[in-house]
C-alpha cells in the first residue's frame, strides 16, 4: 500500500492557481521584510551615485533615486516599514474590531449601545486629521504609527463584524447553545466566529490596502516613517519627479505596492473554501 502524505490537497485545503501565485508574492514580500536588509548592497541613506534618477546598472540594480541613493536597498528597507507597519496595524484593528463587534452583538444592551456610539464618534473624525494630530502630539515612532493606524481603522472593522454577528446571533444553533447554558466567550469563538471568517478575511484584505495608502499619506506629510528611511509610499512620492524620465526609482516602488496589495486581496479571495467559507 502506498504511503500517503497529508498534503494540503489531501486535507481538503485545495487552492487554485491564482491563489497560489498570490500567496507566493505575499510570502516573498514577507520574507523580504524580515531578512531583506541583510542583503542590501548599499546603505539606504548614503548617496552613491552622481546621477539622480539613474538607470539600472550592474552596481545599482534598480537605479538611483532623486538624490542618487541606491533604490534596491531603499526598497528592501521600505518593505520592512510598509509590510510590517501595515500588517501589524491591520491585524490589531481587525482583531480588536471583530472581538468587540462579536461581544457587542452577543451581549447587547447598554454595552452594545455605549460601545457603538463611542466608535461612531471616533469614526466621525477625519482619518488623516486624526493621524496628523496624534502623531504630532506624541511624536512619530513605529509603535505610535501602528497604534494610530489601528485606531483609525478599528471602528470600520467593528461595525462590519457587529453587523455580521448580529445576524448569526439570531440563528437557531446559537439559541440552542444558549439554552445549553453556554457563556458568551464560547458563543463568540465557536458558534459565531467560524461562520463569519470569509467576510471578515475579505474585510482584512481591503483594510490592509487602505492602511498602506494612509501610511503613504502620513509619510507624505512628513509624519510617517522618518528620513532617511522611507516606506514604499514615500518612495513613490519623493521620486515622483522622475516620472517624465521613466526612472525606475518611481516605477519600482509603485509596482511593489501594487503587487503587494493586489496579491493580498487575490489571496483572500482565493483562499481554500475550507477556510474561507466552511458552510458552502
Amino acid at each position: 500500500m502506498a504511503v500517503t502524505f497529508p498534503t494540503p490537497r489531501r486535507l481538503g485545503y485545495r487552492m487554485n492557481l491564482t491563489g497560489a501565485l498570490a500567496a507566493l508574492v505575499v510570502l516573498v514580500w514577507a520574507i523580504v521584510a524580515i531578512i531583506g536588509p541583510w542583503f542590501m548592497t548599499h546603505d539606504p541613506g548614503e548617496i552613491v551615485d552622481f546621477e539622480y534618477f539613474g538607470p539600472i546598472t550592474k552596481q545599482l540594480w534598480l537605479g538611483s533615486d532623486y538624490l542618487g541613493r541606491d533604490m534596491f536597498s531603499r526598497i528592501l528597507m521600505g518593505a520592512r516599514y510598509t509590510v510590517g507597519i501595515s500588517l501589524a496595524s491591520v491585524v490589531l484593528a481587525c482583531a480588536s474590531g471583530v472581538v468587540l463587534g462579536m461581544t457587542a452583538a452577543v451581549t447587547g444592551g447598554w454595552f452594545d449601545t455605549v460601545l457603538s456610539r463611542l466608535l461612531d464618534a471616533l469614526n466621525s473624525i477625519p482619518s488623516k486629521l486624526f493621524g496628523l494630530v496624534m502623531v504630532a502630539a506624541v511624536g512619530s515612532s513605529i509603535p505610535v504609527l501602528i497604534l494610530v493606524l489601528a485606531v483609525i481603522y478599528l471602528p470600520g472593522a467593528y461595525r462590519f463584524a457587529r453587523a455580521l454577528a448580529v445576524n448569526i446571533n439570531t440563528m437557531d444553533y446559537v439559541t440552542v447553545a444558549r439554552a445549553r447554558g453556554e457563556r458568551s466567550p464560547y458563543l463568540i469563538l465557536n458558534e459565531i466566529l467560524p461562520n463569519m471568517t470569509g467576510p471578515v478575511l475579505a474585510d482584512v484584505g481591503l483594510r490592509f490596502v487602505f492602511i498602506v495608502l494612509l501610511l503613504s499619506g502620513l509619510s507624505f506629510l512628513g509624519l510617517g516613517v522618518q528620513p532617511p528611511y522611507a516606506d514604499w509610499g514615500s518612495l513613490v512620492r519623493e521620486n515622483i519627479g522622475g516620472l517624465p524620465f521613466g526612472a525606475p526609482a518611481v516605477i519600482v516602488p509603485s509596482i511593489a505596492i501594487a503587487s503587494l496589495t493586489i496579491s493580498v486581496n487575490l489571496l483572500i479571495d482565493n483562499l481554500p473554501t475550507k477556510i474561507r467559507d466552511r458552510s458552502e
Partner: protein
Amino acid sequence: MQNLVEIRDLRVKATTDAGNVVPIIKGVSFDIAPGEIVALIGESGSGKTTIALTLMGHTRKGCDISGGEVRIAGRDVVRMSERQRQSLRGTEVAYVPQSAAAAFNPALRLLDQVIEVARIHDTMTMPQARAKAVELFRALALPDPENIGKRYPHQVSGGQLQRLAAAMALIGDPKLVIFDEPTTALDVTTQIEVLRAFKSVMRDRGMAGVYVSHDLAVVAQIADRIVVLKGGQVQEIGDTAQILHEPVHPYTNELLSAFEPRSFARPARPAEVTPPVPVLEVQGVHAGYGPTGPNGLPYKMVLRNVSCRLEKGCNLGVIGESGSGKSTLARSIAGLLPPARGQVLLDGRRLEPASAQRSKEDLRRMQIVFQLADTALNPARSIGDIIGRPLSFYHGLRGAEKQARIAELLEMVRLPRAMAHRLPGELSGGQKQRVNFARALAAKPEVILCDEITSALDTVVAAAVIELLKELQRELDLSYVFISHDLSTVQAICDEVMVMNGGETVETLRAADLPDGARHPYSKLLFSSIPQLDTGWLDSVPARAI
C-alpha cells in the same frame, strides 16, 4: 379526444458547480386531458416541481431539458423559441407559486398585479381586465371582492394572498394551470378554504391543472389522476381512487402507510407506578415580547395563563395553528423567553425563569430540539463537534471516551459512525434532524422539547423519525413535549394533546379520544379541517362561517 398535454420521455439534467452532470428527470411520460387535474406527488427531490416547470418551457438555473418532448395543444414547448414561450405563458399555461407572499410585489396594489398578465399580452382593455379580476375574486370566495384589489399584499392574510395568486394565474384564461404546492405553507383551517375555492373555480371553468404536492390527502381532494414520482421517474400513474385504495407500486404503498395515522400503542402501564409529581409542570405562564408595561406584563402578549403537566415517561402533544403560541411555550419552558408570570417546575422543583440563571444541571435535564435542522446546526462545525459539545459541557468527557460516546449516539439515531467527520451541509434533511436530536440526547436529558421537528421533513422520513423517537423513549426513559401543527404526527406519539389557539389553552385531550372526543368548537374545527385520505372529504366538510 386529443390530449391537452402530452409529455413524452422527458429528460432534464442539471450541471453542478463542480461541472458534474446529474440527471434529474429520467424519461417521464404522461398525458393530461382537457379539463383534467393531474397531481404530481413525491418527496422533495423527486422532480415534481421540475416537471411542472417544463410545461412552461422553463427550467431552474443550471438545469436543461436534455431530451423528450412536452406538447401543449399539439405544440412542443421544448423546441419553441423563447419568444414563443413568452406568448404561451400566462395565456395558455399559468403558474401558481408555493409562496404567494414572495410572489407579490409589496409596493404595488393587488389589483394591478393581478391584471398584469392582461396588460403584458394585451388580451383585453384595462376596465375589462378589472371587471374580470373582480369576478374571479368573487369566484375564489375572497371577502369584499370589489375592493380587495385596492389593498397591498401585506394587508391581506396568507390564505387570501394564495387565492389572489390563483386569480393572477386565471385572468388570462389559460388552458392549463400549474399549482406548485399552493397550500403547503398554510394552516389547515385556511388550507381547506383555499382548496375549496381552487376546486370550484377549476370545475366551473373546465380548466386543466397540474397540482404539485407532497401531501396525498390534499391531492386526493382536487385531482382526477395522480402521478407518483420518485428520483425523477414515474412510479405509478392512476386514478385518484385507485392510487388511494388499490396502489400497485410498493413506493405508493409506503407513501400511503406513512400517512395513515397510527395511534400510539404503549404497553399498558400499571397505574400505581405513575409518580404523583409530574416530571414537568407549567403553571399559569404568561409570556410575550416588547417592553414591560405597568401591569408587569410585556407589551405584546403571546401566552396567556397556559398550564400543562407531563408525567414521567409520557408524551404531551401541543397542537395549534401558526401564531397560536406553541413555539413560544417551548421557548418559555426552556427559559429562552422568560415567562412574565407563572412558573415552570421540573420534578416538582421551581426553575428560574431565564435560562441564564438556571443551573447547568437543570439545563441538562431539559433539552430543546428546533424545527429547522438547517439552521439549528452550525454549518461551520463537524457533526462530531456538534454532538461532542454537550458531552464535554455537561459531562466533562474528553478524548477517546468522548469519541466513543459520539459514535454511540450516532448509532442510537441510526447514522453511520463515519458521519462524525462530515459538515451539516453534506447531510440530507432527515439526517440533519437526527443529528439535531442526537445533540439533545448527548446531554442525557429527562425531558425533550420537540418544536415541530418533523414539519420540514417528507412524510416517509418524518414517519421514520417518529419511530426513532418512540424507540429511544423506551430505551432511555425520556419524556417528550411534542409541538406540531400536524395532528397525525402528534397522534402517533403522544399520550395527551393540548390544543392551543391565540396563546391560550383551548382544551387538553387524551390521544386515544382523538379526533372525535373534541368538545371545544375550535378543536372541532381544527380536527375537521385536517385533510383525510378520501376523495369525497372536501365536499363533505361544511363550509366555515366567515
